Structure formats: C-alpha cells, structure tokens
C-alpha cells in the first residue's frame, strides 16, 4: 500500500537558479519523515518535486530521478495526474475551494476524476473526514461552505481532501505554521494515526514537532543565500536530536545557527 520513495541526485531549478542540489535520500513506507532547516534552504522545493508540483511554476524544472517503488516519476511516459493522485499534498496555508461545501471539498478529487456514484462519494467523504479527525465537528453541516470553518478545521479539511483520493504518500509543507497550538496538536495526533496507512513527509520549522512526530529527520541547509540547498544529514530522528554526526546539524537544532 504505502510506497517507498527514493530520491537520486535530485536538483531543482527556478529558471536558471538552482534551488536544491543533488539530494539523495530514501524514505521508507509507512513512516513519518521530517524535513527541517532554515528558511530558503529548499525544503518546499524538494517536497514539491516529489509529486511533480514543482514544474507547475513557469520556468521550474527538476533533474535527477525520483523513484516511487522503483519507478521514476520523471520518466517521459508517466501520467502526472496519476502521480499526484498517488502522492497527495497539504499546503502551508489551508486552501479549501471557496465555491464548494465541506462535502464537495472532500470529494472534489474523486468527483473531478470521474467518480459519479453518490453512495461511493458519501462513503469516501465520511471515511476521509473521520481519518482527518473532523467528522464529529462537521457531520451536521456537510453542505455549509468549507471556507466557513476555523483555520485548524480548514487545514484538517484539506487533509481529508488529500486522503479522500486514497494516496500512498502524503506530503505536508509546514501544515501547522498558520495554526494555533490546539489545532497543531490535533494535526500531530492525526499524523501519528495516518502513519499506519500512509508514507508521510512533513516540512516543519518546529523542532519539537519534528522530534514528536517523525521517525526519520532530514536536515537541509544552504551555505549562503544564492547557493543551492543541500541535504546535510539524514538519520533516525532520535539520533539527529540527541547525537547528530554533523556539526552543522547540532548547531542548528541547539539554536547555534551557523
């Protein structure tokens, strides 16, 4: 079910600017991997290259190989929409579709990919909302607008929307940075549950969060602005936070940023 992700020498560009350089890492199925590092070091760029969202921006391109269960998603004969259905994504700012109800938001991915049957959609909606720990809060107002929910609820709605299409991998780009501590806790609990079914990669600026939710942690950094971001160290979370093998990692997580 969940998939192994292997990045092999992945570099990504915005026009001529190289944002990440030669990233290689293996992400195990049914695990939570945290990506940490200072702003601008290419965490989002790397995350977006895992489900081919990077190329959505004009002039952006990716080099290297990204293997999902051994299949390179950057091969020519790959269907991009299929890749994105397999590898879902949750963004930093909750982005529910404003013209749609809660129900329509959750089933948007299914419906716009051709699922018509009401019973199927109903079941998928309930399953996804339960999976996102939102069902009890919204079950009585499924046809109210999704944009009317609180920020934390909207983010969980977006998670429900992402898992409704039953992806194998869920990518999360700072999913809690716009949320209050209670909503953050709700989403962290949710990540712990989702781990049983999905491979999760989460970008976070919150060191405690990375330590709490993840099994493995990758530390990205840049030498200076204008230089591409690199993967400095990638190891078990416990090791990274207690006994990192690279000095820069230690400096970063202890707050002596350098």
């Amino acid at each position, binding site marked *: 079910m969940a998939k192994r992700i292997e990045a092999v020498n992945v570099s990504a560009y915005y026009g001529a600017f190289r944002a990440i350089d030669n990233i290689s890492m293996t992400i195990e199925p049914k695990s939570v991997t945290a990506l940490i590092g200072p702003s601008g070091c290419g965490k989002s760029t790397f995350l977006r290259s895992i489900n081919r969202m990077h190329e959505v921006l004009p002039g952006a391109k990716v080099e290297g190989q990204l293997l999902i269960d051994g299949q390179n998603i950057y091969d020519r004969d790959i269907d991009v929409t299929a890749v994105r259905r397999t590898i879902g994504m949750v963004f930093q700012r909750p982005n529910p579709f404003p013209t749609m109800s809660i129900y329509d938001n959750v089933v948007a991915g299914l419906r*716009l990919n051709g699922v018509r049957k009401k019973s199927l959609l109903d079941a998928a909606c309930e399953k996804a909302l339960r999976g996102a720990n939102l069902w009890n809060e919204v079950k009585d107002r499924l046809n109210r607008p999704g944009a009317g929910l609180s920020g934390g609820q909207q983010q969980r709605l977006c998670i429900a*929307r*992402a898992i409704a299409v039953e992806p194998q991998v869920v990518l999360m780009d700072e999913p809690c940075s716009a949320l209050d501590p209670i909503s953050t806790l709700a989403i962290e609990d949710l990540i712990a549950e989702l781990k049983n079914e999905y491979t999760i990669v989460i970008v976070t600026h919150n060191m405690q969060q990375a330590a709490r939710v993840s099994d493995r942690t990758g530390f990205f950094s840049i030498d200076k602005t204008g230089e591409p971001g690199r993967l400095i160290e990638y190891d078990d979370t416990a090791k990274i936070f207690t006994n990192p093998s690279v000095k820069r990692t230690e400096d970063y997580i202890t707050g002596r940023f350098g």
Partner: protein
Amino acid sequence: MSVASHSARSRVTLKARRLPGWAPAGVGAAAILIAALAVYLPGAGGPVLTSVVAALLFLVGLGALSTVVEGGRAARNRVATSLVYAAFVLALAPLLSVALTLVTKGSERLNGYFLGVSMKGVSAFDNKGGAYHAIIGTLEQAGIATLITVPLGVLGAVYIVEYGRGRLAALIRFFVDVMTGIPSIVAGLFILAFWVLVVSPMFNNGRPEYSGFAAALALSVLMLPTIVRSTEEMLRLVPGALREGAYALGIPKWKTITKIVLPTAAPGIVTGVMLAVARACGETAPVILVALGNPAINFNPFSGGQSSLSLYVYEQAGTASKYAPGRAWAAALTLVVLVLSLTVAAKLLARRNKLAR
C-alpha cells in the same frame, strides 16, 4: 526605568474638548438661513446660488467653530470630511438629475400600449406608436452578440491567463487592448464592409442583406475586448493556491479551470459581461449602419432591417412631430429599465451558484 516613574511621567490625557453632536447640523441650518437671506433679500439669485453660498458658509463656519473649541487638527478633520461629502454630492447630482428627468419624462408615455405596438404606419400627426419592434431588436441583437462573445471572450481570457506563455499571448493581449478603444462607428463600418457587402450577398442572391444579425456582429466586436479584459482580471484574482490544491489532488488542468477557477471567478465575470451588454444595448451608430432600422416589427434577425431601442430614441428625438420627444423619453426609460433588470437578474443567477453563507 522603573515602573513608577514611567507611569508618572507618561500620564497621557486622552480626553479632548469636542463639539456636541448636533453642532454640524446647527452650523448647516444657520448657513442655509444666512445664505437664503443674503441671496433672496437683494434678489441676487435662486436656489443654486443659495446652496453654493450655504456650502461655503458651512465650511468656513464649522472650521472656525471647530478651531476655537477643538483645536487645529480636529478642525482640519471636519473641513476635510465636509469636502469629501461635498464631492460625493457633486458627483451624485448629475446622476440623480438624469435619473429623475428620465423617470418623469419617460413615464408619461410608458404603458402597455407603448410597449405593445410598433411604429408601422404612424404619421407625424398621430399620437400613437410604440417601441415593441425596437425592444425585439435590442433583445435579439444584444442576445446574439452575447451568445457569440461570452464563450469566445471567456475562453480567450482563459487562454491568456492559464495557457498563454510568450509571444502569442502577449500579441493577443495587445490586440485586445487596441480593440477596447475601437469607436463603435468603426466597428459598424467594419461589419458593413466585411459582412453586409461581402459575405451576406453570398446567401442573398448577390444582394447585400442589412440585418439585425449584422448589428449583433458589430456589437460583438465592441463587446469582445471588454469581456476578455474583465474576465482576465477576474481570473488573475483567483489565488494560485486553489489551482495548486486541485493539481495536488490529481485533477487535470482543464477540469481545474472549469470546475474550480471559473466558478470562483464567476460573479466577477458576470459583472464584466453585464457591463459589456449594457454598453452594447446603448450603441446606436453600428445599428444604423448595418441594420438600417425598421418602423415595423421584424422578428427575423437574419433578414431585413431591424430597429433597436437606442436607434429608436435617436430617430424619435430627431423626428419633426410634437409626439416624438415623448416617445424618445419613454424608449430611453425602457432601455434603462431593461438593462437594469438584465443586470440584476444576471447577478442573482451568479450568486445562486454560490453557497449560502
């Protein structure tokens, strides 16, 4: 710095002397009274001069009073506020005047009879005739033009915003910009030369066919750039995060556009379309050129001359008959009401699709 000394030193006074709430109204009443006395006693002028003098007196009086009681900053605030209100009233006055004139003069003749008959066989001495044929013409011409331009315009804007990259998109945008400024008479001439004189003879045994459809084509030339531009602006307002959210669900681009982007932009697009429709309904020149006008009812937009409400207003305003001006006003009112109700209906329709908040 200790807390005690801090609070002792910076004990700020937040209270200030203010004029009572009725002061502006009082100054206003006094200004009007003084102005009326000053204008009417020597017989210098009428209500217009009175209101100008009263407005000036009000500004000076309120400013002076406020300076004395409240100080300079508050006085400047009051004067500035009054000036803003005055500008608002000045801007609104012509609009209200037009609306009032239109309603009073237009409602004299506007009745079921006027809306139900044409001008066929009505001579200069007849107090008869109506605008039925012109309403038919306006509805058909504007309707056909809308049917042509809305799909073209919206798709064009979608191309420019969602697909267009590089030279071609820039070129199209440039031509749309140029077309926005086309005078309506030029659009009429273009359709006259291209459609009426060259294309239509092919369908009409070699004779040029003046028709409502030709007028609709000319109106389309005028509407298309407006619709493209306004739709383009509305599409650009749709946040990129929504598109990315859809792509991340594996939704193909064209479905993202039709099911997410366009519905989000729909209310704004409808507003733009209705502006274009309103403009088209008011155009006279192209209709004269290519539809010629027709005093009788002609339901067929593809054959024979057709009138329109704006053309009817133009004709009646220039007709030597004492009954014609009344008909012109009534038709003008009909046109305004028609456009207004179309706009309201379109807005309601666009909102119905949105969720109840």
